[in-house]
């Protein structure tokens, strides 16, 4: 059905590894590789967006010669950067967008959209502004939108990095049904999802670690309270409080991880702690004082918007961090330092954004999903960095869906559920 022969993609002076692949209907293919290895480029060449060398054929026809409308109605693409994919402002408009583009009749648009909204459990959010959805809800929306046209092949570009485990299981049911109907899935990632989407073929585009290798020593005896969160309530709209009386403390030098389902309010909580949002009621105290912007460093989930240097070196020089440059050179990524920022992969940008924030050595750093987009090798490196920095009495509070990362690199894990925090584990 889909065949890649000696296929490679050129983007400027960069050339991807050569890929050979023969996929039949109903099969699952995993393209595995580290950040920046060319996984996304290969997928984009399959949908005819990027030009390629070699051959890519779909049911015997060369992709570059196919009628684009025919090609797009048969292949759907889900990118790793959700915010770039979303293009309208309401959930139902987003789901209907691809159908409108392919010229479907109104009646069919409604039926097909409702079907995928139900499938992804987004029906009750039909009228919501897309930009008020949590990252996980956005991910479901993007998948719903991609499935709306009933494509023969779905290309998932690192599409499960930001979904909680419960939602992953729900998607497994959706995709099982999809595969049974003879459809094909090609996904990219840093490791094979054996328990989730067991692949029939695996393509490796470079080496990466399959799991977190390091288990950090838990810091004990931390007594100096740095952060106090007391009875914190917050709402975006009148109808619903997203935080409903959150209480917790964080100690100086502690690595504290907050986990929770998509949409549970983790990002909101971090923004309140860093002084960017004001709580509806309750209070946050850092060193017994109300937080001011700049007292605590906030590292957003989307690294692209926080980088303003033309190159990583320029970005890091701005915070006068020879320290961060040295770290990058020591792990053999020195070649990144002078690359144009826009040419870096999502994982590489995240690494630079994290290092830039950690270089400031604030007493408190809050990190929103620091491991999304990082392969295990980079995540291991970041975990080690967190450990070293917390030993210098810097407190790190992070959110993640990656339970393995939380357990490997945190002193304490909190669960945010239904707007309330519970302490769930001490390793």
């Amino acid at each position, binding site marked *: 059905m889909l065949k890649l022969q000696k296929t490679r993609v050129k983007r400027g002076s960069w050339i991807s590894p050569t890929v050979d692949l023969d996929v039949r209907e109903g099969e699952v293919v995993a393209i595995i590789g580290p950040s920046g290895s060319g996984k996304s480029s290969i997928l984009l060449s399959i949908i005819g967006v990027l030009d390629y060398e070699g051959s890519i054929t779909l049911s015997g026809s060369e992709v570059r010669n196919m009628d684009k409308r025919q090609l797009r109605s048969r292949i759907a693409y889900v990118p790793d950067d959700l915010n770039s994919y979303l293009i*309208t402002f309401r959930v139902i408009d987003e789901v209907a967008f691809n159908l409108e583009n392919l010229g479907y009749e109104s009646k069919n648009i409604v039926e097909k959209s409702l079907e995928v909204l139900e499938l992804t459990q987004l029906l009750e959010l039909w009228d919501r502004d897309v930009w008020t959805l949590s990252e996980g809800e956005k991910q479901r929306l993007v998948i719903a939108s991609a499935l709306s046209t009933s494509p023969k092949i779905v290309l998932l570009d690192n599409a499960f990095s930001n979904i909680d485990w419960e939602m992953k299981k729900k998607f497994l049911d959706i995709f099982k049904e999809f595969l049974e109907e003879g459809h094909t899935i090609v996904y990219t990632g840093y490791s094979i999802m054996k328990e989730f989407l067991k692949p029939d073929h695996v393509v490796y585009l470079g080496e990466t670690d399959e799991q977190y290798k390091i288990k950090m020593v838990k810091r004990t005896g931390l007594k100096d309270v740095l952060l106090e969160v007391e009875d914190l309530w917050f709402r975006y709209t009148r109808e619903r409080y997203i935080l409903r009386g959150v209480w917790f403390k964080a100690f100086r030098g502690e690595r504290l991880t907050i986990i929770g389902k998509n949409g549970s309010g983790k990002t909101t909580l971090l923004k309140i702690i860093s*002084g960017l949002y004001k709580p509806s009621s309750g209070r946050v105290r850092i060193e017994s004082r109300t937080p001011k912007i700049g007292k605590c460093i906030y590292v957003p989930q989307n690294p692209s918007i*926080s980088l303003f240097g*033309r190159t990583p070196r320029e970005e890091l020089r701005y915070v006068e961090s020879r320290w961060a440059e040295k770290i990058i050179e020591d792990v053999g990524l020195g070649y990144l330092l002078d690359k144009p920022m826009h040419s870096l992969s999502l994982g590489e940008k995240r690494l630079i954004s994290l290092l830039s924030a950690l270089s400031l050595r604030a007493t408190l750093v809050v990190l929103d999903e620091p491991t999304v987009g990082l392969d295990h090798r980079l995540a291991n490196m970041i975990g080690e960095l967190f450990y070293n920095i917390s030993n210098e009495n810097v407190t790190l509070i992070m959110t993640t869906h990656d339970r393995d990362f939380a357990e490997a690199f945190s002193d304490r894990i909190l669960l945010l559920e239904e707007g309330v925090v519970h302490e769930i584990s001490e390793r």
Partner: protein
Amino acid sequence: MKSQRDEKTDWHRLFLETSSKINPLTAQITILLILAAITIETNHIRIFLLLIVAFTISSVYSRKTLSILKFILLFTPLSIGLGIFYGLISGKSLLEAVFIMWMRIGTLVSISTLLYYCVDPWELADSLTRYLRFPRTLGYSIGIAFSVYQKMMRDLREAIDSLRSRKIIRSWLDYLLKIDKILYITVYIAYRRAEELEIVLEARSFDPYWRRERKRLKIKLKDYLTLIFTSLSIILVMFLVG
């Protein structure tokens, strides 16, 4: 799987309804009327009254009075610059020229927020091609530009939050002193958004000639009332006041 659909809900109707707070065509006509009036009017009292009309219409529809005021404030340096230039070439006193130009730009900014806050960019494109017979490529280019602009403003807010959090921006003065950083990040975001948009539109099968719009762009009672209110206000201000 158990259906989550409420049988009483008329989904077909909901899918065909527009999400804009004002019909895009009504918004465009309202903006044109105000712009025409503000361009030909020279009396500062009448211009001030037109500013009030524009501000009222935008505030009522968007319910973002403070944000509109912020926008007017943001454009004040431009108004002052243009006002000085206007004063020099028209022979008016500089103070009067600056004041008139500030009110004109303020009116323009206020009424333009109708498009920013109250109109869905895709419905705008739809109305341009359907009612005003714009070529589809042009109509959709305008719609897409609006959509990217709205996305960019969100990105920029997040970016500024990040700069504030990292103490790169500490005070209002830093917005001026570090304007190069802010401009760089703005240009970078715009460039990146444009690059992504090209890929996403292709991946999502967008082609202005294939696209079939599903929504019904009805002109409702409130749209007629807005047009009547705007027209009557302009007539009242321009012909009866003073």
